């Protein structure tokens, strides 16, 4: 069954066509890759799904529900969480607070929380306990009280993932999760992403440049170029697909000896 269905989505920036009728189906339970060269429209589509970007035509449905009328703060309540390309943490806050803010959609009645009513305090204690468990899962227990700006890069990446998962989403959108990572860190994140998918039954949609990550984790891939679909298949099939090779490397021209 498809968790997410994208049909004929078009986005224009002034005269520029960023997405020109894109289709994509993300099966429930999979790790799905969305790739393409620079300017292909990957991030635009990603933002359409997370509702940071409006689209002119087409439809995006999540579990059969149309997303077009929802705002960015709504989709997390349906179970869609996202991360950002260049780490976008709450800088001045601790690791714990970042994870707790990730649980905002589970806050319950804001008035009860604000006034420290018994029901609010009970909820807070429950959230805190879950945040502790989340931190443990990502190996962040030792830095719970540290301000996130002072954490090393690898830790910040994990805080961002923990924060997104704190909302207990069914669909996790990852925007270039290994951008800026070295090989070691990329391998580490691949393992984490696979664990998230298998153990927590979270469907993952990952936008990525890095082919090694795509090969390591994705079950299926959609390739975009100039705002259009050019291929779809397993990572292996995709990497040998002539249209994909052309998009990334240019047209094959016979070389005269």
């Amino acid at each position, binding site marked *: 069954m498809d968790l997410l269905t994208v049909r004929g989505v078009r986005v224009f920036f002034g005269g520029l066509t960023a997405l020109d009728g894109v289709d994509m189906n993300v099966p429930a339970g999979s790790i799905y890759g969305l790739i393409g060269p620079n300017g292909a429209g990957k991030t635009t589509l990603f933002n359409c799904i*997370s509702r*940071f970007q409006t689209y002119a035509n087409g439809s995006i449905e999540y579990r059969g529900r149309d997303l077009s009328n929802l*705002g*960015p*703060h*709504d989709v*997390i*309540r349906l179970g869609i*969480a*996202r991360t*950002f390309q260049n780490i*976008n*943490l*709450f*800088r*001045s*806050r601790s690791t714990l*607070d970042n994870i*707790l*803010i*990730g*649980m*905002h*959609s589970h*806050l319950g009645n*804001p008035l009860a*929380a*604000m*006034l*420290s009513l018994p029901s*609010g305090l009970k909820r*807070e204690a429950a*959230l805190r306990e879950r945040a502790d468990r989340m931190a443990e899962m990502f190996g962040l227990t030792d830095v719970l009280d540290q301000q996130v700006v002072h954490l090393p890069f690898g830790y910040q990446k994990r805080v961002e993932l923990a*924060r997104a998962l704190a*909302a207990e989403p069914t669909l996790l959108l990852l925007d270039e999760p290994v951008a800026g990572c070295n090989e070691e860190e990329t391998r580490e994140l691949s393992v984490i992403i696979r664990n998230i998918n298998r153990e927590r039954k979270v469907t993952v949609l990952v936008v990525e440049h890095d082919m090694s990550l795509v090969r390591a984790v994705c079950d299926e891939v959609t390739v975009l170029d100039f705002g259009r679909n050019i291929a779809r298949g397993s990572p292996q099939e995709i990497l040998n697909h002539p249209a994909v090779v052309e998009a990334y490397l240019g047209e094959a021209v016979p070389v005269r000896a």
Partner: protein
Amino acid sequence: MSERGWQLTLTVLAFGILLALPAVIPSFYASLLAFTFAYVIAAVGVNLLTGYTGLVTVGHGGFFAIGAYATALMAKHLGTSVVPGLLVGAVLAGVIGFGLGMICLRLGGAFLAIATLGFALAVGAILNNWPVFEGREGIQLGKNSVLGLQVKDVGFYYVVLVVMALVMLASWSIIRSGVGRAFVAMRDSERAAEAMGIHLRLYKTLAFSISAAMTGAGGALFAHHNRYVSTETFGDAWLSVDFLTAVVVGGQGSLLGSALGAGFVVMVPYYLGELRDFAYILNGVALIAVLLFAPEGMAGVLARLFRRIHRRCAQPITRVVNQVSVGRG
């Protein structure tokens, strides 16, 4: 003792001292302190919006005026006393704050600062020109009574102290809750906050209206303290500038900072006496100095100092404990 434990102990101690203080100081100073507390209440409100939520306001003098004139007009026309005036003043300021928040929703940074400044100036202009408010003539308030009891300097000191404690408690409760976390999240990154499910429009207007209500409460108490309101005080934007100065100099995102900063902006002109006009220069110098050398304000500097002492005192003890446990092993 943990840092949290120390914080609690020192807070209780500070309020204990404030409770006992009128017994040992002349009533004139009690009155001056009550005046300062009204400023503290306003500054706590401004800090919630500017310090925690990151929305800079140069317009909260307007809400202070709304609280003050609400209770003054009620006292004049309906003969009400402090408590109903305080409640109506705070609620009215909160409602108008909600409206201003809605209007300014899409503004941030310098644009928001200018828009809120415009609000303060508009309030001043209305007070100056609409005859109900009696312009520079002002409105005189009768003797203060609370719940049927007449209060003088010391009595009123306790009234303002209690309200200040309640406002600080409310602010603390909000800040440490998920709602407070949402406020700070919006300050740090609006995009990320939205992605976490924080409804920016709702939470920004909420911050705006709570902050305005608190400042309005401060204004109402200020009016009863002086027993007089006029555009001499409320006709321009200087109050707004004072509050922002208090928050920045005292410490953004700190309750202690609101108190220290409000104390600073009240006490400096007071102790300068004849030279009070120089207070503005001093405030300006303090602002620049804080922004350059201690962006976390007076409260931040104090906290750093405290931590250093705490560590120095704590260190030998842990060493001893380690040695003891090693010895046992």
